[in-house]
């Protein structure tokens, strides 16, 4: 479970599913840093990064451009995989006074205020939050001078989504926003930000745990060792690029259909072909065996 995360000295990418997080301000990150025992990564100089073995959190700074740059920096530094998850957590404003301060929302629609472009994270996973839309504005806003289509208003979500979607599939990207104000941010203190997020930290971590435990997959049919064997056979038999690809496809099929294939091709692992024609003969032989 994440709550027991330790100092984060072990290597991060060794088949462990990662949860990537981002907040725009340190004060939004603080409850997670404490709860998950995240440690500062002093190797990161451009942005503040905190991590343990399973979680990497980046503080993006305020505004959608900074946020997009930070997310790009994060995923360039730590390449995400298909079963990893990424979430943006932060406070937001709303014009709607029927929404209580402190309410946490899962965002199913992001509207970019400047361009009116819209983005939709894939809502595949169950969660325990209310859902709504968030509109990303370029400047701090007050309720008098702006028209909002989104229920919530923030300054990062559209930038984060656009950057993250270069690296991730839309179901891997989530936004949880906690309402902090009715577009009157001057009254919002740093401590209040931390307090609002802290109230939802357990709920958020519990959701992260649930998804993490229930969902993972490995996309490679052939192991690293098997790939090496195939490459050796391709080299030994002097197979062309196309024949090499066909060979790999046949082996993949065989493994899915029947299981282990190494016995069938073991005699070719150390075979040395004098010519391409000889290789072709072997290739035809292998095809007979595998398909």
């Amino acid at each position, binding site marked *: 479970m994440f709550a027991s995360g330790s100092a984060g000295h072990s290597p991060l990418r060794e088949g462990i599913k990662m949860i990537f997080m981002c907040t725009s301000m340190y004060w939004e990150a603080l409850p997670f840093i404490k709860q998950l025992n995240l440690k500062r990564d002093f190797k990161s100089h451009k942005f503040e990064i905190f991590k343990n073995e399973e979680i990497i959190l980046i503080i993006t700074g305020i505004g959608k451009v900074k946020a997009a740059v930070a997310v790009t920096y994060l995923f360039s530094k730590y390449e995400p995989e298909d079963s990893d998850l990424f979430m943006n957590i932060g406070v937001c404003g709303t014009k709607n006074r029927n929404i209580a301060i402190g309410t946490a929302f899962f965002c199913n*629609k992001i509207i970019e205020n400047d361009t009116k472009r819209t983005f939709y994270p894939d809502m595949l996973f169950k969660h325990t939050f209310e859902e709504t839309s968030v509109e990303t504005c370029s400047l701090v806003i007050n309720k008098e001078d702006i028209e909002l289509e989104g229920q919530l208003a923030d300054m990062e979500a559209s930038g984060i989504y656009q950057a993250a979607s270069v690296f991730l*599939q839309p179901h891997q990207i989530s936004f949880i926003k906690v309402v902090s104000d009715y577009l009157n941010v001057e009254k919002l203190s740093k401590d209040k930000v931390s307090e609002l997020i802290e109230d939802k930290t357990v709920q958020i971590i519990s959701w992260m745990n649930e998804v993490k435990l229930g969902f993972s997959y490995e996309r490679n049919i052939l192991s690293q060792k098997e790939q090496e064997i195939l490459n050796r056979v391709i080299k030994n038999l002097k197979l062309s690029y196309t024949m090499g690809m066909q060979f790999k496809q046949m082996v993949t099929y065989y493994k899915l259909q029947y299981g282990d294939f190494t016995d069938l091709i073991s005699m070719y692992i150390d075979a040395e072909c004098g010519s391409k024609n000889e290789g072709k003969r072997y290739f035809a032989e292998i095809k007979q065996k595998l398909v």
Partner: protein
Amino acid sequence: MKGRDILQKLNKNLFNPCFSHIYIEKKALNHPNTKKILEHFREAEIIEINHYKDVFSRSNQNYSLQKNSLKLILAVKKEKLIYNGAQVCEDFGNIHFYYTSTMMNCIYDCEYCYLQGMYTTANIVIFVNIEDFFSEVENLLREHSVYLCISYDTDILAFENVIGYGRKWIDFAKKHENLKIEIRTKSANFKAIEDIDAQENVILAWTLSPDKVIKDYENRTPSLKERLLSINRAINKGWKVRLCFDPILYIKGWKENYKDLIETTFTELPGEKIYDVSIGVFRVPKDYLKIMRKQRFNSVILNYPFETVNGVCSYAEQLSENMISYVYEITKKYMPEEKIYI
């Protein structure tokens, strides 16, 4: 342990139920069909969108994961509504062969389905403005007769209880003698249109597969027995029924499986009352297969080392011929040759 057994760990309870979210184009919000559809999904989260492609065409979507939690997209389609029939599809001797998609994607989850190579998402689109599709067909009908397949890129009958498009198309066909429509399905949902009188110019086409294929590769579809019961009811009501043994898949024991399929089919159904039969092996455009393999990386069906001829991937010529002639020879015992299309 086979490769496909070691790859995935998915807790199905993790997923939102299908149609937990409905995306609706602003211009579709007030359409009567939208209101009708929403009556079936009162608990759904409604999300307004500008254009269906904003959701449908997002890059990098995971088709096979989305099948665990399908979403519905309601839209108004204004551009091209009717397409010329594709070359890889059987025209059954009809000259003016077209198809149309008032819906895109399907509630079923067939491992070999070409839609996962054709569309970027598994989510289902319903174009609520079916009246515009009718108008475009009427324009064509002023020029010549039309043979129109309305359930290729979807399964309209499987969704009949929600939107009733099968019924609407049948009513439309009733008014146009020079229109012939085919409604293709894997469902067992004839009961949804049972009260309608059989139409001379409507063909109900059922795709039939061996039970092993249904169980292993046609997730969520009705069993062969259920499909045959549904077909029998359609025949008894006087409907023209087409049987599609297509795609035939090269699986372990394919001969026994397809022999059983055909024998069971014609034990349960009166051959003399079947309108026609089509037979075909699995085939798919090369570009689609590439995407399909990426989406279903552990599929034994899709990872078969197919051969590519003119951009279409299928089994090697000799194997394809063997499979087709084997199925043809058995089918021939029950159906006159002129009613069997290959």
